[in-house]
């Protein structure tokens, strides 16, 4: 916006303001209605949905759903889209940071004085695109369950390892056979072919990338887990 455009805007704004109404009582009445509405919604949600408490945090037991609050689903889903490990930082840090910087600097690169949406096609399209993309990713995240069962049959000696794996939330991030989410972690269906036992054990111990470390599990469970994974081929 150059100086002329700025002055023109201020002049027109002054006129519109003169024709407007005082904040009290006109605008404040609407704010008041909104206040009651917001308070009511929160109270009703609290009464109907309550605040349940999950089982106590425990690094040594394994049943959990590693799920963020719903408003972070879109970030988590982004991790599934950009699955290869070398892309992980792009999804976790790169894209969110880029989006935030773009958002922060918006008034400085969009210097078009026009305010009507119909005459700001780029702003309109990118705005709607971002909304649809975020809504879609949130929807995917809301529907991505965290299955706790693995169907594939295993010999009796590996039953325990299969059970531990199924109930440890691995399936939230890994696919094994028909079960689990395909991402953000790599598919584990044939992990035994790709990695030797010791490497698998080490992965569980350190928790590569964004995967949590399972070093807190009792040794028996860890061994059973490793045994089972190493058998997958």
């Amino acid at each position, binding site marked *: *916006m150059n100086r002329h455009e*700025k002055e023109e*805007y201020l002049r*027109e*704004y002054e006129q*519109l*303001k*003169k*024709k*407007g*109404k*005082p*904040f009290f009582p*006109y*605008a*404040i009445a*609407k*704010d008041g209605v*909104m*206040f009651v509405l*917001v308070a009511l919604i*929160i109270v009703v*949600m*609290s*009464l109907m949905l*309550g*605040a349940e*408490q*999950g*089982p*106590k*945090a*425990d*690094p040594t037991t394994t049943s*959990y*759903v*590693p799920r*963020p*609050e719903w*408003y*972070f689903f879109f970030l988590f889903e982004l991790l599934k889209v950009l699955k290869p490990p070398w892309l*992980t*930082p792009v999804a*976790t*840090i790169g894209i969110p940071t880029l989006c*935030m910087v773009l958002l922060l600097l918006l*008034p400085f690169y969009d210097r*078009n*004085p026009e*305010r*009507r*949406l119909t005459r700001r096609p780029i*702003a*309109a399209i990118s*705005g709607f695109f971002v909304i649809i993309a975020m809504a879609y990713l949130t929807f995917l995240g809301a529907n991505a369950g965290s299955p706790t069962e693995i169907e594939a049959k295993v010999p009796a000696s590996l039953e325990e390892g299969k059970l531990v794996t199924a109930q440890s*939330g691995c399936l939230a991030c890994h696919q094994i056979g028909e079960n689990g989410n395909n991402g953000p972690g790599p598919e584990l269906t044939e992990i035994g072919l790709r990695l030797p036992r010791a490497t698998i054990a080490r992965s569980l111990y350190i*928790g590569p*990338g964004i*995967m*949590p470390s399972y070093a807190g599990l009792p040794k028996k469970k860890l061994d059973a887990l490793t045994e089972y994974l190493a058998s997958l081929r």
Partner: protein
Amino acid sequence: MPDIEKLIPPPLRRPAKPGEGNGNGNGNGNGNGVVDLRQPTEKNGSAATEELKGKLKDSPADVVGWVDERTGASNIVTALALRKVPKGTNWFYTLGSATMFAFICQALTGVFLAMYYTPSPVEAYASITYLTNEVFLGEFVRGMHKWGATVMIILIFMHMARTFFFGAYKYPRELNWVIGVVLIILTLVMGLTGYLLPFDQRSFWATEVANNITASGPFVGPYLADFLRAGPEIGATTIQRFYAIHMLLVPGLIIGLIGAHLFLVVKLGTTAPPWVHASKPKSLRRKDVG
């Protein structure tokens, strides 16, 4: 009628105005009470009630006046209340204050939760159990805080979308947009840090993942994650750190920034909707008013 005036400390007494009877006025002892010559000497019933009404209306305790004399607040309040909002202002313009109401609700319920919550890995879970099951209305207040967070996130995104689509971030309101983006980031940080505090399985493991996500960042990532966790693993200090961030640091920043945000809103005024134009009165009919 008892002489209430005597009970009111002199500085709070209403000073006498010209035209007032001296019975009302010379509390400040400056002796400028003027006898009203027009005062009727004989009172019939209705005149008496009138007088009582008048007396009640300007009750001798002038607290507002006393405060105003020292602060000049009434000027500010009148200026705020009577400032004009431009023609065409509609319901979309309430989303900002709605966000603020949600934040206030979070702050109030948060204070109640803080009265029962203990930020330590041993006691955190138990204190939440106690709060939820034993404390009067405990689950209700916790539910309000939990769902209030959701409501605030939705409202803040809607408010941002409104200012975006209305082009309200343009000259001269660029700075208000920038403050807004910082506010949205801080609000998300509130969501993230609050999630760990109940310390159930879900919060524990989700925070573990969130921390690993932080750690995957380039350069500062690992250090930032170590700082948040206060060590290599989630433990006692992690909870305390998240608690301090969640209930002191970030709310403080948010309150300050909301103040700056609203200051600019008042100073610059809110935009008129982009389709309303001063030069084309045709487009200003009925529906745009108010």
